[in-house]
């Protein structure tokens, strides 16, 4: 089968043509901005001001938003319901019959949802616009060991692999009379028998991959020849350094904010 196991969307945008490391640095900066500073809104701001415009530039915004919507909505809903309603000893601010939403729970849910959107959003931005082999080569060129680039690459492939596998398994079950088309309840019930073959299948996959890596001399030391060429520019190199510096500064600032009250007290 000629299915490719990557989320890469091949179009020819400026975002696509950027050096993979430039995009990686951008994503890193987003993650740092969204995770290292306190407060609720920064991850939303990062998403709105960096990720959305970049996705628009790369021509992948509709796909990114729809993928994000499908993953974030159930998580956000359950966060708001569970944390919002059942936050132990919180301050009630919104009444719903016998139940009430607690301020602390809502605050927590808004923060976690924002982080989730920002993390998944930047991951999708990178994978939608970057060919996995180019990213791997770029990392390799910068002295990152093969084993680490392999881990990064296979993580990027987990979702599409799982999707493909899940579809095959679902097909096999439907062919044996399992009804999967219909309302939400029918669908959820259909997914249950999927879990076992999916997990076991993935373990078998891992085994086969390990063998495949071994026979292709994955552990071999020394330089390798690559047929790919990467396009880099001085401007991008500078931008990467600036983004890294910014990220380090944000981390330092975050640590300072965290430590300061403890020292003063």
């Amino acid at each position, binding site marked *: 089968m000629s299915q490719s196991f990557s989320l890469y969307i091949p179009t020819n945008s400026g975002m696509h043509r950027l050096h993979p490391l430039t995009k990686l640095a951008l994503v890193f900066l987003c993650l740092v901005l969204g995770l290292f500073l306190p407060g609720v809104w920064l991850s939303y701001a990062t998403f709105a001001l960096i990720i959305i415009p970049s996705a628009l530039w790369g021509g992948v915004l509709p796909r990114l938003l729809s993928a994000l919507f499908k993953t974030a909505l159930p998580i956000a809903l359950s966060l708001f319901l569970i944390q919002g309603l059942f936050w132990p000893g919180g301050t009630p601010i919104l009444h719903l019959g016998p139940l009430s939403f607690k301020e602390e729970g809502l605050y927590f849910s808004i923060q976690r949802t924002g982080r989730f959107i920002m993390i998944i959003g930047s991951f999708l931005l990178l994978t939608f616009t970057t060919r996995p082999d180019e990213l791997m080569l770029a990392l390799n060129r910068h002295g990152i060991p093969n084993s680490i680039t392999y881990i990064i690459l296979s993580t990027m492939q987990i979702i599409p692999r799982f999707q493909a596998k899940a579809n095959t398994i679902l*097909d*096999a079950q*439907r*062919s044996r*009379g399992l009804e999967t088309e219909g309302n939400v309840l029918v669908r959820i019930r259909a997914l249950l028998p999927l879990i076992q*073959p999916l997990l076991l299948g993935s373990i078998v996959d891992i085994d086969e991959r390990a063998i495949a890596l071994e026979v292709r001399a994955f552990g071999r030391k020394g330089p390798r020849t690559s047929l790919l060429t990467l396009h880099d520019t001085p401007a991008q190199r500078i931008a990467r350094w600036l983004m890294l510096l910014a990220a380090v500064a944000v981390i330092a600032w975050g640590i300072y904010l965290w430590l300061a009250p403890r020292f003063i007290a």
Partner: protein
Amino acid sequence: MNLVIDDVGFTYPGGAEALRGVSLRIQGGESIAFIGENGAGKTTLMKHLNGLLKPSRGRVTVDDWDTREHTVAKLAARVGFVFQNPDDQIVERTVIDEVAFGPRRLGQSETDALANSVAALEIVGLSDESRTHPYDLSASQRKLMTLASVLAMRTPVVIFDEPTMGQDARGLKLIGDIVEELKREKRIVLIITHDIDFCSAHFERVVAMADGRVLIDGPTAEVMARADLLATTNVEPPQLVRLAQALGLPVAPLTIDGLIAALPR
């Protein structure tokens, strides 16, 4: 029961045009082998018969049902499909439950479901393993178990995708016997195989596919005689046919007796 494939074209979402205008009529009681090189479109075509894929153009009907108007689960009552990879379907903890999964989903009574499953396991020679966990079977036994799990559904049409792969002489004989039994019961048997001797031993009609089209369709002996055409889809006629041709005989014998009868005395 009859199957009609009417000028069917199919393009995968990824863009691969896998079928380019296939038309076939299959009558009740017919048994047909589908051959042709990798990627010819055999699996894609079979998946149209149980509705897993819906034609991009043209029509597929199973008796009075247009596959577009029925769910796969519903079509499963008429068309049983044995997948290539057994590991994609295992959901139950014992062989007997695994085999009974389809019959139960199709609404057979518990007694019928169990009786049909026991009978199917008997046919594939796995009666002693009915309490075994499916993953404790060997790979070829697992394959036989998937055959049993579709036989137990008692569908009027049975499709096997490469059942002979990885089977030893005993497994081959067993699968041959199953095909013969299904033929006796006047069920439609469709098989995809690269084992040309298996195909000429058990099937009266052969469809050779190439590049999303039907290359030749006819009685087995006639198809096997077209070595020139078969070569274009990388199929070699059976040894006996090639021997007869090398001897300059005007026939394409499928059995040793057939060859001997054609020899000049």
